[in-house]
């Protein structure tokens, strides 16, 4: 597995980034930088996202038509930003993925701590 711990921060498992991006966009349209910050913030800086790795993920999700993008100007910023937003298909995908994720987490938990089960 490609998971390492570096100084209390955890690098992301492959594939989980997509889920995190979708989850972040549930709250509303957002741009790349804000998404990166949001993931870091909501995981209390435990999840370390190398900002660059976000972009292949965004483009992949867009290609799968789970998110769409458009250049837009917002109130906070003077310059136009490429804003990503969730599509209905993406929302469906998120639901499916998160239940699978929860099942995985529960299973992992049972395996790792059998006594608690």
């Amino acid at each position: 597995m490609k998971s390492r711990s570096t100084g209390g921060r955890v690098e992301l498992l492959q594939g989980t980034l997509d889920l995190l991006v979708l989850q972040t966009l549930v709250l509303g349209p957002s741009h790349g930088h804000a998404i990166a910050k949001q993931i870091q913030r909501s995981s209390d800086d435990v999840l370390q996202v190398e900002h660059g790795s976000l972009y292949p993920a965004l483009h992949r999700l867009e290609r799968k038509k789970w998110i769409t993008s458009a250049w837009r100007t917002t109130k906070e910023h003077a310059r136009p930003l490429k804003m990503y937003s969730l599509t209905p298909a993406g929302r469906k995908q998120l639901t499916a993925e998160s239940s699978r994720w929860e099942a995985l987490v529960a299973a992992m938990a049972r395996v790792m701590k059998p006594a608690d089960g």
Partner: protein
Amino acid sequence: MWRWKRARERQEDDLTAEIQTHLDLEEAEHRGNGLRPRDARVAALRAFGNVTLVQEHVRDVWGWTMFEQLVQDVRYAARTLQRSPGFGFAAVLSVAMGIGMNSAIFSLADALVFRPLAVRDPHGLFAVRSTSPETPFSGISYLDFKDIRERNHSFESLIAHRLAVLPFAKSLDAVPQMRMGMKVSRDFFQVLGVDPILGRGFLPEETDIPARGAVAVLSFGFWQTEFGGDPRVVGRTIQIGQASVTIVGVAPRAFTGMDPIIQPFFYVPATLGEKPGQTSEAGVAASVLERRDDLGFIVRARLATGVTRAQAQAELASVTRSLEEQYPDTNRRRGATLRSERELRSEQAPALLPSMLLLLGLSALVLVIVCANVANLFLSKARARSREIAIRLAIGAGQFRLVRQLLAESLVVAVAGGTAGVALAFAAVRYLGSIRIPTDTPMVIAVQMDGRVLVFSGLIAVLSAFAFGLAPAWQAGRADLVSALKRTDVGAPRRGRIIGRQTLVVAQIAMSLVLLVAAGLMLEAFAKMVVLDPGFRTDRILMMEFDPAAIGYSDLQTREFYRELAARAGALPGVQSVALSRAIPFRPSFTDAVIVPEGFELPAGQDGVTTATNTVDASYFVTLGVEILRGRGFSVEDTPDSRRTGIVNETFAAIYWPGRDPIGQRFRVGAPGPWTEVVGLARTAKYFNITERPQPHVYLPLEQHRTSRLTLLVHTAGDPMSAAGPVRQVVRGLEPRLPIANTRSLRTMYEEGVLGMQRLILQMVSSMGLLGLCLALVGLYGVVTYSVGRRMREFGVRMAIGATPSDILRLVLKEATVLAAVGVVLGLLLSVPLARALSAGLSGVGSLSGWTLILVPAGLIIVTIAACVGPAWRASQVDPTLVLRLD
């Protein structure tokens, strides 16, 4: 392609801007936290990671478009081919020959058989044919056509047309020439959907009222050649028949008539020159438009909307039944049937489709040989490249991508070869198009490189790319990585590869043998044909054709003219004899008459037997050297007032009066006709085709069966063409206005018209055979050279332990001979069904004969062995010490 490129550029700009924005935002954030500008930028970059790598990953997500990959593959393939020009040239040249041959043959077959008429909705156009128990299919009389047009409800429209040779002159005072035109019924151009490019088609009153019918539409070709493409030609007055005719339009270039071969020069209303209401001496209507027994018109029809072919056929049957009741004399047992264009063509020329299919099949064989050859070339190159391919596989090239890469190489070869092939075909087509059938009839084999041929060429190019590209590509994709990389040289060949190449060579030899057997059969047939006796004299005969009625001669004037002509021409110096005949052999101008032989039991439901007849004068048999075996030829005794006489040939006598003396037997011409007495028995000659089986034939005396259109045959002491001038003088002296047609020597007509087509087919088949053989030899040579090169070490060892050079020579030659022998045996097996198809499809081609069966395989084996002598010799000259020291 440009749109795709712009889209890709926009996508790139978009990504750059997006990343830049991200970095700027991050930098601003760090600055807000109090970092200095430079540190802030560095921190932003650190948080982001490797920008170039990120861009690469995003591009991966976008993926290479199919098109981008294709361009890459093709570029790479072109570069690879450039690096080995010898290989590239050999491959492209073979493909060019294969595709050139196929395209040329396809264009010929298309011109003769497949190409639809250049009319609107050609497949919705049916032919209506007249049927009777005696003649299954024939044209329709104009009166029947008009009745069918009026009485039926199944057809949206019906038109009729017929070819007619008419005197034509550009001005009223010029001497007319005989020219092929087409007489057409009302709405001809409208129903066909042919819009004249100049002027207009015919108005209904022009095609219906004879007095208004003096108009013509020119064909595009005639407008170009005769009128220089003059745009002001509409409105001009020309002479057709005896009428001064106004040109009202010019047909478009694509529309060349209603037949794949005969292209009329002009179109005129069917009523042009017809004199309704007049009768001839014999009391029949003079105009073909008023004769229900003149089945000269071809009728075409379009079905009304919602009517099926079966419904139309049923209504047609009921209409013809009512015509039968109404006109029992002419329409007894006469029905009508619908034919599609394709069915019509195969009815009119039944031998054409099978022979074209055979030619196409044979040229497909050449293409198969070509593909085997190119596949072989690719395989040998793949061997040399196996290390390169192994390395590319090792560093992560996908197998699929690699296979596609190699296929792209074949595609490049196929496209280059296809292009060159189309150029070759173009040259061949120009040659084919230059062939003229020697008559004044505008018979043109309208071969052309049109869109249809180009599509065909493109298709077979792509097909062959797959055929010769797949095997090598598949082998490369399966390459055994480890062993290929470990070997220092290309190493000993894997057994499978050599077997693969040997299989290809065996297949090539087998197919060349098939082609050569075909060529041999054709050659034999041709040789037989050349020595075949046509049954009449062909040397020192001049022919010339006239039709005085076309310039308004009455029956009496016509008779006078011919009597004078024969007398004066016969008196010319150097002329031995002259004859007049309605038809001459090998030109389809015999009249099929229904003959009722007395005493012969006709098949049930049949009123007579359809037999080719000719009307000839008394000196015909002497002039053409047709022997009268019993009885007499025609003579002055046979006058219109004497009893009707006829002469039959041996075959006729043998079929209808077996074992009886034909002299004195009687027959009727036409079911209700008068009895005719047989006065002579003629030797059976050839009438339609030099290879035909003996055909029954009936001669009738000209004096009792007058006709206006006759051919004068002049038997000369010397060169027949030298008599042409004097005879022309005689004709001019008698009637300066009379057009003279088909002036040529009978020999020329016979050689070009009868043997020419056969010679052309022979040339084609034998050049295919030779091409196939050359390619197969190149393939065999390559395989032997290659395997000898691989086995030098083995030969060295053999010689070191005592083999002599001649042992080695024998060893190599033996292996080559085995390949050739296997190929020959396979080829012979394949030849059996081919020979059967050939002798069934092409007249005059016999079954497999000893000559072909022995000479062709023996020759093939000798030639293949000869091709291997070079490499075998080199193998035998190997120096064992040198070869063994090499490792």
